[in-house]
């Protein structure tokens, strides 16, 4: 018989007994939900009356179309908003950039100036719904802050989050072509700003989702996540910011693959590790600083292009594991994920998956129902020790900024991509419909009418943004961009206020990002196709 192992290659026994958990100390290692070290949950009333935040990642076309999409999802019971930008927006390029031509609005919503955010959030109650995003964080923050203020909503009431990805974004996924130090500074400045002005807003979501989609296992996913969190926390402390002023607003957006129990144990181990680290190492005192908010986007990598109906089953299984682990928000990767950003149909399936599990199964009625299981507790301990071991190992390699410049992280991700590809090709990782139980392509038709439906890029938006830029006062735009450039030149200045001012005055994301790059001796346009405006 082949050896039993988890997806992260942790050896498994046939069954577990009290012997396996004999050294487990309830009070110090588990404790009740809502009590240190929060292994069993961050709050005593985990899901309250309404459940976790049930939402789906949305965004396509121009901001008007995405606004309609959001309103539809809310009408169907979505409890929070999570907006994803198209690939130009993610790369901080305006739609009129040459490289963006065929990508405007196809993999998310196209957003590049304040007018876009006004349209995106039109008629949405920003004072009562949480607004999260997969967007360049400084601009998502600026857009939300400015639109809320214009609409008479105090930024102090805003809930939601932005992802901070200074470490790994360049290496696997959302390259913005900015130097490490600038990426880091933008994150830290945003966190400082939010601690003062947006106390309910999660200014630092550690996104372990996107980089683990390169094929990392759960140990690697969380270890890299902790390395980034620890670095940002240390830098904030160096700046003299009180840990308890920003730590309660750190959250982790995790991935969720198909190894059911391992994913549950990962989340429980993460809560315990985070609490101990915050208290013992960083001296946090506020209980909210110790109990980390965990949200999840279920794995797109785990889904298949073949037999897309199987993806609905995968989403349901992953959602169940997340609810059993106890998380604060869930987005289910859509069944058409292998082909496109979610269609209306797959959005509804994702939302209904969550609603069926929440309202029909009763699994959310008791917190941490698997707590005390010989197996789950053993696996939680094992993951805790492996994740921490890897954090120590990476930190022992030296300054993460250096590691990033040397390409150490990039190689790490590339090795994982290769390993994942091999596992699938060699049949060591089974994917029903893809490398086992296949059917001929011509018979694989169920749901394909949704997965294969395409729409065109928003070409008219390119012209619209060109006209928008021409319609501005060029001299004034230059001035506001110069102010951003000057601030970026001074390492001690905060970048948030000048970015807010420039964005508020009509400068675009591409322009603001470009002048910040210039201040760090990087090219204004990473692709060498645009002239700097200043």
């Amino acid at each position, binding site marked *: 018989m082949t050896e039993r192992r988890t997806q992260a290659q942790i050896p498994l026994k046939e069954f577990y007994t009290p012997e396996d958990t004999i050294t487990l100390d309830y009070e110090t290692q588990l404790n009740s939900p809502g009590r240190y070290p929060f292994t069993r949950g961050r709050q005593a009333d985990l899901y309250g009356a309404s459940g976790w935040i049930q939402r789906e990642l949305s965004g396509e076309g121009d901001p008007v179309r995405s606004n309609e999409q959001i309103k539809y999802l809310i009408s169907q019971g979505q409890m929070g908003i999570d907006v994803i930008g198209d690939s130009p927006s993610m790369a901080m390029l305006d739609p009129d950039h040459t490289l963006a031509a*065929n990508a405007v609005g196809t993999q998310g919503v196209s957003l590049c100036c304040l007018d876009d955010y006004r349209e995106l959030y039109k008629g949405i109650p920003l004072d009562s719904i949480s607004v999260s995003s997969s967007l360049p964080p400084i601009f998502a923050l600026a857009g939300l802050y400015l639109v809320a203020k214009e609409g008479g909503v105090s930024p102090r009431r805003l809930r939601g989050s932005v992802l901070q990805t200074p470490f790994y974004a360049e290496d696997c996924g959302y390259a913005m072509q900015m130097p490490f130090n600038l990426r880091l500074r933008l994150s830290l400045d945003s966190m400082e700003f939010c601690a003062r002005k947006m106390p309910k807003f999660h200014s630092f979501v550690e996104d372990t989702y996107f980089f683990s989609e390169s094929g990392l296992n759960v140990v690697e996913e969380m270890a890299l996540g902790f390395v980034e969190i620890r670095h940002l926390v240390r830098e904030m402390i160096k700046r003299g910011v009180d840990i308890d002023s920003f730590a309660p607003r750190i959250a982790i957006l995790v991935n969720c693959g198909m190894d059911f129990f391992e994913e549950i144990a990962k989340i429980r181990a993460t809560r315990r590790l985070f609490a101990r680290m915050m208290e013992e190492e960083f001296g946090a005192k506020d209980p909210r600083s110790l109990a980390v908010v965990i949200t999840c986007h279920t794995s797109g990598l785990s889904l298949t292009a073949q037999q897309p109906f199987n993806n609905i089953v995968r989403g349901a299984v992953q959602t169940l594991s997340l609810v059993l682990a106890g998380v604060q928000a869930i987005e289910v990767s859509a069944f058409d994920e292998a*082909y496109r950003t979610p269609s209306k149909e797959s959005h509804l399936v994702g939302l209904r998956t969550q609603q069926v599990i929440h309202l029909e199964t009763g699994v959310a009625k008791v917190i941490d129902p698997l707590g005390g299981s010989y197996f789950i507790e053993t696996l939680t301990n094992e993951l805790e020790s492996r994740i921490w071991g890897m954090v120590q190992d990476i930190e022992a390699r030296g300054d993460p900024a250096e590691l990033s410049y040397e390409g150490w992280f990039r190689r790490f991700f590339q090795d994982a991509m290769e390993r994942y590809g091999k596992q699938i*090709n060699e049949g060591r990782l089974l994917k029903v419909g893809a490398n086992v139980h296949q059917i001929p392509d011509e018979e694989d038709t169920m749901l394909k009418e949704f997965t294969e439906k395409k729409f065109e890029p928003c070409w008219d938006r390119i012209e619209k943004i060109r006209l928008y830029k021409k319609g501005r006062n060029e001299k004034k735009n230059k001035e506001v961009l110069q102010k951003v450039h000057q601030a970026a030149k001074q390492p001690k200045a905060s970048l948030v206020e000048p970015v807010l001012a420039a964005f508020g005055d009509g400068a675009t994301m591409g322009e603001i990002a470009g002048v910040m790059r210039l201040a760090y001796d990087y090219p204004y346009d990473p692709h060498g196709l645009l002239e700097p405006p200043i």
Partner: protein
Amino acid sequence: MKNSRVLIGILGLDQHEVGAVAVARMLRDAGMEVVYAGRFNLPAMIVQTALQEDVDVIGLSVHSWEYLYYLPELMSLLEKKQVAIPLIVGGSIITRADEAGLKKMGIAAVFGPSATPQGIIDWITALSGENRGLRNKKYG
């Protein structure tokens, strides 16, 4: 016979790199020489790199719909410059209908989600051999 020399690249702002990296390493393991052009390429850059690096086959990894608009431009560039290097395309988003369209356009081979590693290697080996015979002639 010298080993196949293959360019692997991604077009436009498609940032999904898992497939390209996995395929590049797989081809290397199979003894081929891989010129990895990475992300953010426009058609003209692909053609230029392919010529500079004297590759036998151009392989594009596609995980966004951008390729649908870039490939006609790329094919006509190859034709205009009389470059006889076969172009192959792979990616999980390619549907059967897309595949038919691509073949019509003159793409030498298309690898959808069900392509096998050996299938890709065999195709590239065959195309490289053919290509050497056809060098400096128009690819037909």
